[in-house]
C-alpha cells in the first residue's frame, strides 16, 4: 500500500507553475502587443485595440498566407500519411526481419536532421543547373532547365516534398511497428477466406489500427504547423507569395520588411486561437 505522501505536490507543483508562467506570460503578452501599435524602430506605442485585426482582414497578402498555410497543412499531412502507410505495409509484406531493421534505421535519419539542414540538402538538390535531383530531368531532356523552387506552381510542392521526406519515412517505421503489434489470428482468418494481401490490409489490419493512425495524423498536423524553417531557407516565401505561410508572413512583417511587431503579433494571435480551438476539438474527438 502506498501511504499518503508529499511527493505528488513537491514533484508536480513547481514544474506546473513554471510551465504555466512560461506559457501564459508570452501568450497573454502576445495579445497585449496585438492590441497596440508597437514598431521595432521606436519604443513609443499606444493602444489601438482591434484595428490591427481589422486591417488584417483587408490585407490580401494575409488572406493569401492563410490559404497557403491551409494548402501546406493538407498537402503535407495527406502525403505523409500516404507515404507512411504505403511504405509501412510494404515493409511488413516483403521485407525480412533483418531487412526491416535496416530500413527502420535508414528511414529515421531524415527526421533527425535539423530542418535547416534538410532544407539546404534539398535546396542544393533542386538547383536547376547543378542539383542532383534535377539531374535526371536534364539528362532526359538533353539539358533543359527545370527550377522547381522558383516556379509558383511547383514551389510549394517542392518544399512540401522535403517535409514528407522527413516525416513520411519516419511514420512508415511507426506504421510497421504498429502492424507488428497486431495479433496474427485475424490476418490468418482473412487469408483462409482467400483475401488478397491488399484486401487484408484495406479491410482488416488498417481498420484495426484506426485509432493509432488517427493519433499519428494528429501529431503530423501539429508538426506541420512548423513549416517556417523549411520555407525560410528554401524560398523565403517566394516566388512572389506562392509559399508564404502565416508564420513566414508574420515574420517578414515583424522583422524583415516593416518592423510592425504589433501587426505580426495580431497575426500570431489569430493563428494561436485557430490552432488551439481546432486541436482541442480534435483531441477531444480522438480521445472519445
Amino acid at each position: 500500500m502506498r501511504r499518503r505522501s508529499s511527493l505528488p505536490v513537491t514533484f508536480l507543483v513547481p514544474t506546473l507553475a513554471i510551465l504555466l508562467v512560461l506559457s501564459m506570460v508570452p501568450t497573454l503578452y502576445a495579445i497585449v502587443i496585438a492590441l497596440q501599435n508597437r514598431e521595432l524602430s521606436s519604443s513609443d506605442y499606444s493602444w489601438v485595440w482591434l484595428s490591427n485585426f481589422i486591417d488584417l482582414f483587408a490585407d490580401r497578402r494575409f488572406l493569401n498566407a492563410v490559404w497557403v498555410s491551409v494548402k501546406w497543412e493538407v498537402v503535407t499531412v495527406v502525403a505523409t500519411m500516404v507515404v507512411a502507410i504505403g511504405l509501412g505495409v510494404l515493409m511488413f509484406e516483403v521485407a525480412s526481419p533483418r531487412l526491416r531493421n535496416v530500413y527502420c534505421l535508414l528511414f529515421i535519419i531524415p527526421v533527425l536532421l535539423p530542418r535547416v539542414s534538410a532544407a539546404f540538402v534539398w535546396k542544393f538538390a533542386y538547383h536547376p543547373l547543378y542539383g542532383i535531383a534535377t539531374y535526371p530531368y536534364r539528362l532526359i531532356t538533353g539539358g533543359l532547365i527545370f527550377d522547381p523552387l522558383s516556379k509558383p506552381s511547383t514551389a510549394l510542392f517542392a518544399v512540401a516534398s522535403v517535409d514528407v521526406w522527413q516525416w513520411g519515412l519516419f511514420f512508415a517505421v511507426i506504421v510497421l511497428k504498429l502492424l507488428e503489434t497486431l495479433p496474427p489470428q485475424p490476418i490468418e482468418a482473412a487469408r483462409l477466406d482467400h483475401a488478397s494481401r491488399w484486401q487484408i490490409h484495406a479491410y482488416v489490419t488498417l481498420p484495426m489500427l484506426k485509432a493509432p493512425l488517427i493519433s499519428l495524423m494528429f501529431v503530423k498536423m501539429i508538426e506541420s504547423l512548423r513549416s517556417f524553417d523549411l520555407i525560410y531557407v528554401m524560398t523565403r516565401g517566394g516566388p512572389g507569395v506562392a509559399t508564404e505561410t502565416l508564420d513566414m508572413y508574420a515574420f517578414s512583417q515583424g522583422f524583415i520588411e516593416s518592423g510592425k511587431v504589433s501587426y505580426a503579433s495580431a497575426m500570431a494571435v489569430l493563428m494561436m486561437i485557430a490552432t488551439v480551438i481546432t486541436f482541442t476539438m480534435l483531441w477531444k474527438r480522438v480521445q472519445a
Partner: protein
Amino acid sequence: MRPYRTTPGRIIGKTILAFAGFMAVFPLAWTALNSLKNNVDIITRVPRLVFTPTLDNINYIIGRDSVMTGLYNSIIACGFAVLIGVVLGLPAAYAVARYPNRWAGDIQFFVLSLRFLPPVAVAIPLMVIWLQIGLYDTLPALIVTYSLLTISVIMWLAIPAFQAVPKEIEEAAFVDGYGAYSVFWRIALPVAARSLIGAVAFSFVLVWNEFLIALMLSSSNAKTLPIVASELSQQGMNVPWGILNASVVLLSLPPLLFLGVLSGFLNSVFRQKKT
C-alpha cells in the same frame, strides 16, 4: 508468417522499398560528398562522383569564429535546457503516472497543448519581454525559452515510460520500508532508464534543431548553429557551395549521434504496447 512465392508484385514492392531506402540517405550522403569537393567539382552540369577530395571546406568551417561561437551557443543552450527539462520534467511525469488524481488528464492535455502554440506567437512577445528586461540576445533568455519545450516534451514522453514500470516492483519496495522519494530514485528511475534516455535524447534533438525562436531571440551574441548555417547561405552563391555543404554536415552530426538511442526508444515503446 506463411512464406510467399516470388511474384512480380513482390519484386516491384522490394524495388520500391529499396528506392525509398536509397532516397532516405542519398541526398544527405551527396551533401557530405560535396563538402569534400572543390568548387569546380560541385558546379558541374553532370554530377561528379570521381574527384580529388579536399579538406579545405571543413577546415574553413572549423576555423571560422562565427561557426565555433554558434556551436558553443547551441551546446550551452540545448544542454542547459535539457538539464532543466530533466530536473523538472521527470519528477512531474512520475507524479502524474503514479499518483493519479482528478487533474491527471487535464495536466497531460495542458502539456501537449503547449505544442500547439505557434512558435511565432511565443517568440514575438518573448522578444519584446527580453528586450525590456535587457536579456535579449543572451543565452539565459534562450535557455529559459527552450525549457518550456524540453520540460513539456520530456513530461509527455516520460509519463508512459513510468507507467510501464511494473507496479509490483514499486509495491515491494514500499513493503521493504522505502519512502515515496526513494522508490522514485532507486526503483522507478533505474527501471525506466532506457525509455527515459530516449525521451531526453528526443528533447535534445528537438531544441538542437529549433530555428524560429533562436532566429527571433538572437541578433549577434547568442546565435545558435542553425542560425549561423542559414546565414552562410544568405551571402548568395558567392560562398563556395562546398563550405555550405560542410556547415550542413556539421549541423546534422549531433542529432545523428542519437540515431541508435532513438531507434531503440521506438522499439521499446512498441514492445510495451504489445504486452
